[in-house]
């Protein structure tokens, strides 16, 4: 704890920490309160008299209903879930295999390949989205979920590989050597012994990859065009704004509901997520 008297503890610990928590969480509170506030209360100018922005006495579900009745929000949710899940699974399989090979096997150019994968890990999506859009169109994948299912792994695989490499390196080599002497082939040793032991690492990589793909925006924005194909972030952005008019109620409701699946996954696996996060920069 902080040394010294009670006032020091307040000045140097409780007050700053409270401020941090308040600032970091306030936008979410604002999201929630807006979701349930009727339009009549919503659009009051900032200097209106007798305006109570932080609370409402007339909570309403009209924005959420609007979302489900007037937009394709449920379809967007489904799309996002499907794309995130499938691309995460693909990336996990590739990443676990590649990570295993790089961490455990001796082969020519292993070092170079490891570096290459690390470099691709650092390639931002915004560097390649224009030519990639062209390629997606040429492959006939434009405006289908496959456009994202196949491209999300490009930033997820390097991450998963990197994370799994670190994890595999922490598992004693003797485990699989023993398995191989016990009669397992290299692949069986990996499948029966190393993978089960690496489950926590795989979970971390999976959770992190899932949140990353749920979060992705620019590919989804560029590769998808019809409303029924969109993901939540793109759908909310493009379908709830008409010209200059923002439908703030449904927008916030969409933001809130669109955040809930990630928040749920996150809340169940906080430790794995944090391990993935810190592992992602550690290597």
């Amino acid at each position, binding site marked *: 704890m902080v040394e010294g008297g009670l006032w020091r503890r307040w000045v140097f610990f409780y007050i700053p920490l409270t401020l941090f928590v308040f600032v970091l969480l306030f936008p979410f509170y604002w999201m929630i309160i807006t979701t349930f506030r009727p339009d009549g209360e919503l659009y009051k100018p900032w200097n209106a008299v007798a305006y109570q922005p932080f609370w409402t006495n007339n909570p309403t579900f009209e924005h959420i209903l609007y979302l489900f009745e007037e937009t394709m929000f449920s379809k967007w949710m489904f799309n996002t879930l499907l794309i995130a899940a499938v691309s995460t699974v693909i990336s996990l399989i590739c990443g676990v295999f590649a990570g295993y090979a790089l961490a455990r096997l001796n082969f020519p150019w292993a070092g170079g390949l490891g570096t290459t994968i690390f470099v691709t890990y650092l390639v931002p999506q915004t560097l390649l*989205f224009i030519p990639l859009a062209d390629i997606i169109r040429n492959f006939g994948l434009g405006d289908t979920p496959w456009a994202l299912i196949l491209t999300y792994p490009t930033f997820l695989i390097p991450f998963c590989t990197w994370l799994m490499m670190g994890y595999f390196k922490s598992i004693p080599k003797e485990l699989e050597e023993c398995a191989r002497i016990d009669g397992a082939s290299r692949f069986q040793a990996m499948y029966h012994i190393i993978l089960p032991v690496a489950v926590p690492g795989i979970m971390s990589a999976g959770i992190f990859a899932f949140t990353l793909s749920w979060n992705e*925006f620019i590919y989804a924005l560029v590769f998808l065009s019809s409303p029924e194909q969109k993901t939540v972030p793109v759908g909310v952005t493009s379908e709830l704004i008409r010209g200059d008019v923002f439908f703030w109620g449904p927008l916030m409701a969409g933001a809130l509901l669109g955040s809930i699946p990630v928040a749920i996954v996150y809340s169940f696996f906080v430790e794995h997520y944090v391990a993935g996060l810190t592992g992602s920069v550690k290597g």
Partner: protein
Amino acid sequence: MVALATSSAGGKRPAPRARLLEDERWLAFALLVPTAILLGLFIAYPFVKGVILSLTSARVGVEGEFVGLKNFVKIWNDGIFHVTVWNTFWYTGVTTVFKLALGLWLALLLNRHFRGKAFIRAFILLPFIIPTVLSTFAWKWMFDPTFSVINWTLYQLGFITQRINWLGDPDLAMTSIIIINVWRGVPFFAISLLAGLQTISPELNEAAAIDGARPWQRFWHVTWPLLLPVTMVVVLFSVIQTFADFQLVYVMTGGGPANATHLFATYAYQLGIGTGLLAEGAAISLAMFPFLFLIVVVQLLYIRRVEVR
């Protein structure tokens, strides 16, 4: 040769069973193929294609022809591009400094034992977890010119009498974007640095305390040097992400007002996708490459140095 001769004389050599994957090289090859295909198809190929595209006059629906460096010359003389370059570096620099300072502060606060620590740690990561676009909309609503809750608060507290048009003024718009980026990035810095702090043995600080070091001196002479490797990596990661940022600006201002807040990515999007000038958009994207490349090289060298040590 001698060894071969003796073995053929002294023992029978069983025909090696067909176990291709027992050979490390074949197994490695098999395990790496899926990754290589996906990364080759959707990273290496687009990169090459992007370079070629930037050297043509392609637009949406028009193949275009080879024009050499014309697109690059054009953006070089483009006033908006100049603003974009300045914005991107300013945005990256300022946010990184704030994210590091605040993130480190928060990490140090969290590196103590107090009740509800796990709970608070879980909650403060939310800005980083929640899809950026969605949380940015919450901010956009908070910064709304007419209905801003921030203006309301400042007005009620007596700080302002005129409304602040957060997103209408170029400087204020940039400031708003910086605030949001810092807000989103601080948890990442804090949690990563916290992980770094937790690997520092408390005995070191205790020993320094016994040697008579004040808390500030302990931080400066013990904690900070040991935390530096993690800090470097986190900063470099964050710099890359921030430099190539898109979502935040796209949602908050779309590059406006009057193209005053464009970053590379948003300007590339506006030209390449919005206006359909594919080649010019690709050229602007690629203009990010030298700087990104530099950062990646620094990072690789740094990681290697840490590993060697």
